[in-house]
């Protein structure tokens, strides 16, 4: 019997501001899980802290709503304990590209089979409007009253450089493309980043829906080949970049490649049942183990 969309929704209604871009992400993710017919009990959604990280409460999957910036290592541990689970990480730009950027980079170089959906609003929303690592230069916020003077993180370029094997950008104003991208990201074997431009209607008065609508385009429609890393790099640096060019914002799948996942290479997982599923936990031949100590 096919799983209905309703079966992926929780009883808790989202507490985001009306108009928040994160509603579209929730909708795309819910739809993607249903499209893939993944039983919600086999899906683990891990988030950190921030408005968007509340998403774990709004789906009927297993959820782990952890600490600020630490969703990726929690997801890593869970995936290594039970690779049979579909493990998805979701959170904001502050969570993933700010406080958690170290884990983000290392998870990508490992090519774990994780999907990471970042709701990137280029602002700190839950703490009421400070600059985030993706806030563009000159953006005036509560913490940068004279404008941001640092360059923004370019998550797409960072992901390609760090060894992610699926790198995409979505936009909350285009749920259809976003849903397709999330479906492909979950299906992808390896680390998949979906950086979603998800406007904050309350605190980011610069990068609004309108701002994006004027700039976004879907790379597939222009014949982009995501398996060509050089072409992917060109798309990656189209925006944001050091010279401040902001004419066009590419969305869709920017880079895609197939390489072995960490789980496939791990010396334990390649030989044993997943740690979480092992039932015999004792040691059969302790004297064999102790031999080296004599």
């Amino acid at each position, binding site marked *: 019997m096919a799983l209905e969309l309703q079966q992926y929704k929780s009883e808790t209604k989202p507490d985001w501001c009306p108009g928040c871009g994160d509603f579209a992400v929730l909708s795309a993710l819910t739809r993607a899980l249903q499209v893939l017919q993944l039983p919600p009990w086999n899906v683990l959604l891990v988030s950190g802290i921030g408005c968007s990280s509340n998403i774990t409460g709004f789906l009927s*999957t297993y959820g782990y*709503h952890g600490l600020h910036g630490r969703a990726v290592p929690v997801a890593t541990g869970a995936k290594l*304990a039970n690779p049979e689970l579909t493990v998805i990480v979701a959170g904001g730009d502050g969570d993933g590209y700010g406080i958690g950027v*170290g884990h983000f980079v290392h998870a990508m170089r490992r090519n774990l089979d994780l999907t990471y959906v970042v709701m990137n609003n280029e602002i700190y929303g839950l703490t009421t409007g400070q600059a985030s690592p993706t806030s563009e230069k000159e953006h005036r916020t509560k913490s940068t009253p004279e404008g941001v003077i640092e360059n923004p993180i370019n998550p797409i370029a960072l992901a390609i450089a760090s060894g992610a094997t699926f790198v995409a950008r979505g936009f909350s104003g285009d749920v259809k493309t976003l849903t397709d991208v999330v479906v492909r990201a979950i299906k992808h074997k390896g680390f998949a980043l979906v950086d979603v431009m998800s406007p904050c209607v309350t605190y980011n008065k610069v990068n609004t829906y309108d701002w994006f609508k004027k700039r976004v385009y879907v790379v597939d429609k222009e014949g982009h080949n995501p398996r060509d890393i050089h072409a992917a790099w060109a798309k990656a640096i189209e925006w944001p970049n050091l010279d401040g060019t902001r004419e066009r914002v590419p969305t869709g799948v920017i880079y895609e490649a197939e390489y072995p996942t960490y789980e496939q290479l*791990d010396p334990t997982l390649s*030989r044993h049942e997943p*740690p*979480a599923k092992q039932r015999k*936990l004792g040691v059969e031949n302790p004297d064999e183990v102790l031999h080296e100590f004599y």
Partner: protein
Amino acid sequence: MKEIAFRVGGAAGDGVASTAETFARLCVRGGLWVHTYSSYQSVIRGGHVWTQVRAGTEPVLSQGEEPDVLIILNQETADIHVPLVRDGGAIVYDEQLSKLDGLRARPTVRLVKLSMLATARQLGEPMMKNVVALGAALALLDIPFDPMEKAIREVFGHKKPEIVEMNLKAGHTGYDAIANDGGSLGRDLPYGQGPGRMMMTGNEAMALGALAGGCRFYSAYPMTPASAILHWMATNGPKHGIVVKQAEDELAVVNMAIGAAYAGARAMCATSGGGFSLMVEALGQAGMTETPLVAVLVQRTGPSTGLPTKTEQGDLNLALGAGQGDWPRAILAPRSAAECFESIVKALNLADVYQTPILVLSDLYLGEGNRTLARDELDFNVPILRGFLADENGDGKGFKRYKFTESGISPRAFPGMKGYQFTAATDEHMENGFLISDVLAGVPPWIEERRKMMEKRMRKLEGLRSEMSLPELWGPPDADLTIVSWGSTSPTVREAIGRLAAEGHRVNSLEFSHLFPLRIAETQEILEERKTTIMVEANYTGQFARLLRAETGYAVDHMLTKYDGEPFEPREIVARAVQVIEHGA
């Protein structure tokens, strides 16, 4: 007990540690008990390092004090250690490596000049100078050459036969040099009379405890003095189905372990003080999400980077206060290698049963020192308790992961179990895991709910309390003086009270290996039965004395603290006890 202390010193890179380890292993194989202590520095080459191996006919409780036999591999070793060698002992040196001119050895100490380096060079490998020295040391102590030959064949047997022959020649050169000139020291150390036992460090015993206790996920970031646990796990974990992950930092280490535990694997991580400081926020997270976790803290000398290769018991306050807010935890502090093993087994069970982090405190002295263990000290036939699990065959309707119960322990479900989906949140939550923090905080029914959830979690502290062992008392129960200690310091105290007894003093040793939560009334009673007390602990402020006073109201009468990075020697404890006995202060 018949015993000797052997010491070898040189520069890092001279092979000091491996020489000492070989000596210790030969002693253990010959039925002796050993205790080793390595003094080293945070360098890879150069500096001054030395290792002492104390071997005896009964379990050896501490590194002891001065050596009987000293092997000198560089000048600095000569300068520092020559005057320390005990009466009737021997110093083995090579004029090409060190000069003894102007150094005052005790008059009864034999000086053995041995051409270690020249012999080794002649044989073709200068590093074999240690083998020459080791041969000499064995001859001085009446240890037959055969065990050394066997060890050389084991180590080099897989290489070319010439290498085995070279090493055997080197060893014989040293051995024969003593036999032909002066002979042994006549210590009569019985060799080959007891059963061969095991030798391992506290760190290795912890790794074995993790294996025995069903650990299936181990994560770590390299940090002295905890790294050996990672090394053992990385080598052996995959054979036993344990996933071992070196992470990018200790934030990742602890969060990965928590993720693995949440998914259903018994998880453990280990570090030292700096790494543990990074783990602090996540430990509270596991307390809040009620995720089992064993976190090992192998202490070294703080504060901050401190002395990375030196020991201390200075992180008790850190373990006790880790994380914002109150959450249930237990702190175990094994005293011996065997207790390192047991405490990890116990910690893994407590973590799963009480669904909260269990912290195990060891230190460099215990973690890196080799000890002899009898096979029956390690019990692999241990119960593996997974705690209160949701019924896999149920439908999970309305599953309350954080259900209010009398014990505070709620049913656990793992991802993959149909119908039990819930979200574990670091925000305050309801019985079903829904958040209270966002739109319900401060709303009347939820004010009450938050209070009840806090009390539910904290009831687990009372369960943990009932699982804790009371302190162990060694020596005459009605002694005039009691020395209180915890963790790795306790065996040294036990040796000290033995010496005090030999001098006619009635002193006993009260030893804590379970530090928190204390069984307050019983502990109070035990403390109040004591006449006079001295707390011996290796930190500046007397962290355990403070904990005891806070929990029980009992203030120890006297203190002996140490924070120079070196472990206590029995004689320091004896001296402090005598001072209290004779002067009352």
